[in-house]
Structures are given as C-alpha cells and as structure tokens.
C-alpha cells in the first residue's frame, strides 16, 4: 500500500510537470510550423524558414531591441537602487524602517493594472515633462522591479557574517574599501540573481508597459497587436530563443548547485 501511494504521488508529479511544460513545447514546436493561413494554431508542416529569417515580421527586430535595451537599463538602475535599500534595511536601525519595508512591499501587492493606470495618470497630467515612450517604459520598469531586487538581496544579507567587515575595518580598511573588497564580493551572487530576475520581469512585462508605452513597441506589445490580426511563427522563434537562453542559465545554476552540494565541506 505504501509502495503504491509513493508511486501515485511520483506519477502525479510527473504529470503536473508535463502540464507545466506542455505549452512551452507547443511554443517551440510551432516555431517550426509552416502555417497556410494568417494564424499559427494548427500544425501544417516543418520548416526552418522562421528561424533563419526570424526578423521577417514587420517591426519584430526593433521591438526585440527595445525590449532588451529597456530590460538592461532598467535592471541596472533597479539593481543599484534595490541593493542600497536592502543594505539600509538589513544593516541599520533607523526611524522609518518599517515604513520603508511597507513601501517596498506595496508595489508587489498591487495589481499590475493599477500600477500601470496610476503611472499613466501621472504621465497624462504632467505631459509637459513626460512624453509616453521609451523613457516612461524605463521609469515604469525600474519602479516595479526594485521591490523584487530588495527582497532577493535582503534574503542573502540576513545570513551575512558581519565579523568579516569588522575584521577588514580593524585591519585599517576604510568603509569604501571594505565595501569594495569584502561586502560587494559576498553579495554579488545575490545581486546577480536579483538582476536576472529583474531582467526576466522586464522583458516579459505587458500590462504596465502597454499602458505607458505611447507609440513605442516592445516584444510583448508587438505580440498583443499581432494576436488580433495574425501571429506568425517568428513570434514563437523569439519566445523560444528567450526561453532557451533563460533555461540554459537555470540549468547551469542547477548543475553548479549540484556540484557544490557533492563537494565535501570546506573544500
């Protein structure tokens, strides 16, 4: 009986994973489809055309470039701002600490449509300063990414041994040198993880971007526009490429953790 139960659960887990991965397989599969009509919903035949001429869809290349530019820039700024907030919250006791925690938590617990709508309300009422476009997308992305960066870096900082920094200072290092030589190398992995998360959130964001983009196209906006008219396999090609890069990084990390776990302690 125990044996059966154990295997029922394993079978379920494998089924659930299949459910999670099925749409991904479909996305990749249909990037090789040769659709006859405007829509790419039914399998017709195999072709590599859309991988070779991935940018043959009007506006796709520009949209992808814009998405990457916004993603890199917003991630860079948000990682810097978020890490500093995390350092302040974990390291210092100051008046307004819990208010800061709340301010960081709130954007994560507000529906995206409200975040997007309120930013649009700001931009519409201050159109002398803000014209909708690349920079308003950038502003919006930094705003909603920062909180995720804070949370990710904070988690790492909490388990951090402060004695290392005190030792550095005792040995005559200034605060800046201590940060550069001790603190930064220790929190760099967390910052990298946070930055990857931030970039993933940015490149995938539709709702907030859609409300604040004006005429600028990002990749998700292009897909939205296409969804009503025709979605060529080029879209699947780009989505598959993004997925493959992300999963390669993810698998690299899994492998690294696995090796680290197998290595004897202290080595």
């Amino acid at each position, binding site marked *: 009986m125990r044996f059966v139960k*154990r295997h029922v*659960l394993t079978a*379920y*887990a494998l089924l*659930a*994973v299949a459910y*999670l991965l099925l*749409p*991904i397989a*479909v*996305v990749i599969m*249909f990037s090789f489809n040769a659709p006859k009509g405007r829509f790419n*919903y*039914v399998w017709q035949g195999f072709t590599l055309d859309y991988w070779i001429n991935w940018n043959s869809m009007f506006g796709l290349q520009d949209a992808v470039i814009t998405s990457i530019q916004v993603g890199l820039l917003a991630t860079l700024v948000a990682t*810097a*701002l*978020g890490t*500093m*907030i995390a*350092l*302040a919250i974990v390291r210092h006791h100051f008046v307004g600490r819990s208010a800061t925690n709340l*301010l960081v938590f*709130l954007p994560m*617990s507000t*529906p*995206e*449509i*409200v975040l997007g*709508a*309120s*930013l*649009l*309300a*700001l931009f*519409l*009422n201050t159109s002398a300063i803000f014209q909708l476009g690349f920079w308003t997308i950038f*502003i*919006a992305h*930094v*705003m909603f990414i*920062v909180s995720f960066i804070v949370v990710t870096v904070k988690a790492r900082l909490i388990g951090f041994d402060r004695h290392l920094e005190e030792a550095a200072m005792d040995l005559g290092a200034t*605060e*800046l*040198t201590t940060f550069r030589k001790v603190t930064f190398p220790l929190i760099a992995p967390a910052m990298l993880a946070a930055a990857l998360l931030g970039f993933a959130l940015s490149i*995938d964001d*539709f*709702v907030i971007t*859609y*409300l604040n983009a004006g005429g600028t196209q990002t*990749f*998700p906006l292009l*897909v939205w526009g296409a969804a009503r008219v025709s979605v060529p396999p080029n*879209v699947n090609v780009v*989505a598959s490429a*993004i*997925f493959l890069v992300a*999963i390669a990084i*993810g698998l690299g990390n*899994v492998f690294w953790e*696995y090796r680290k776990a197998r290595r004897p302690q202290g080595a």
Partner: protein
Amino acid sequence: MGSFFHRHPRFTPYLLLAPGVLWLALFFLIPLVFLAYQSLQSGSYPDFEFTWEFSNFTDAVSDYHEQFFRSFLYAGIATIACLLLAYPLVYWIAFRAGPWRNLFLLFIVAPFFVTYLVRTLAWLNILSSEGPVVGLLRGIHILDEDGQLLYSTFAVISGITYNFFPFMALPLYVSLEQLDHRTLEAAKDLYASSTQTFLRVTLPLSAPGIVAGTLLTFIPAAGDFINAALLGTPRHTMIGNVIQAKYLESLDYPTAASLSFILMGAILVALLIYARAVGSEKLTG
C-alpha cells in the same frame, strides 16, 4: 566619503535609501494621488475637469459590478485550482525528489521564461477545436460533436491557473522545505497514521506557504485581463479588460481611474477578510 560616514553614521541608512525610496515615491505613491485626482474628474476627452465627481465611483460600481464579480470569481477558482494542483507536486519535490529537487524547481518556474502573452497563445493551439485535445474529448463523448473548449469560462480560468501556478508553488515549496522533519518522525512515533500526520502536522506547518501563495496568486489574477482577452469572449470580460479599454480605447480616464481604485480597495477588503480568517500573524510571516 568614508570619513563622512564615520563622522555621521546616523545618515548612512538615509543616504542608501534616498534614491530608491525617491523613485518609489515619485513613480508609485505620487501616481496614486494622480489616480485619485483623475478619478474625481468629469467631462470627456480631452477636456477633463476636477469636480469632486464622486458619482464616478457609484456609476462604476453599478455599471461594472458584473465584471468585478467575475474577476473575483475567476481569480478565486483559479487560486483554489493552483493550490490543489501545486500542493502534491511541491510535496513530492520537497520530500521525495532527492537530488532532482533543483531540476524540478526549475520546471516549476520554466513557464516564466516564456513570454506571458506567447505562453497564453500556446493554449489557443492546445485547446483549438482542430487540435488533438478537443478531438480526443469529442471521440470519448465528453464533448459534443461540435463542442469546443476555447472561448469559454473554462478556457479563461485554465489560462489564469496555468499562468499564476508558479506564484502558488514557490511559497508552498519554501514552507514545506523548511519543515522540521523531526516533527513528522515524532508524529509517527506517536502512532499517527500517514493521513493523520499529514492533516495534523504537515498541513498546519505549511500554512504560511498556503497563505503567501494564495495572496501572490489571487492579487495578480484578479487584475488580469490577458487570459480573458485571448481565451474568452466579451461575455468573459474581467475588470482589467474594462480598465485598459477605458484608458486606451474609449479614453474615459475618470471611469478607468475610479475602477482602478475600486479594484485596489476590493482586493484590500478581500485581504482583510482573509487575514481575519487565517489570523493576521500568518499574513505578515
């Protein structure tokens, strides 16, 4: 710079906070004020005037209560579906997967690596009336000859469930992974059956994960409009669809703004009721 920090250590946290907090104040808090301002305007595009137009709110509720109800209903069902689907999977990963743990965690977040809109469109392929799923269901007479899965309540809720699944699974995993295995052994030593152990030890100890997962799934699900737009029909419109259409298509900013506020308020109320039900200490962790 170092010496400045040395002389004024009290300022260090504020200097660290300043840029990020300023950004959030300027582009998160102040926009909410503008949203409030806009929600009380009257007139039509592009000439809106601030007139303390509180009727925007009452009109919004009376015109769109159906969409509000639907949003919360769909989000609620999807959240429960996520919980029921995710719990056994995550339980297996935490207790049985051994060295495969990290790989299976990667599988859970894998959908996030595919652009949201594209992975939602993939369900169009899967549920399409010409596709194998509908074919199979028609073959075994679960669906009628001309029955379909797409453009239905089922399709919209399935889409939401799929898209927000990782938000439920990850916090659940964290709470199960941190669970002290000695408590399970203790239960066994005290002759609890495996069902009793699960119901009286595992489940209560994973409550923080259930609570966090429920919130992380329900909040974005209630504001979602992509699943309803792509997998449903106008009969499945959620409040997110109305807000974005008012902003970008009919340019009725005051109504859109008041709807956004009501959505936020309704979610807050739902949170409070939920906090009441589960105990507030579990909500804050």
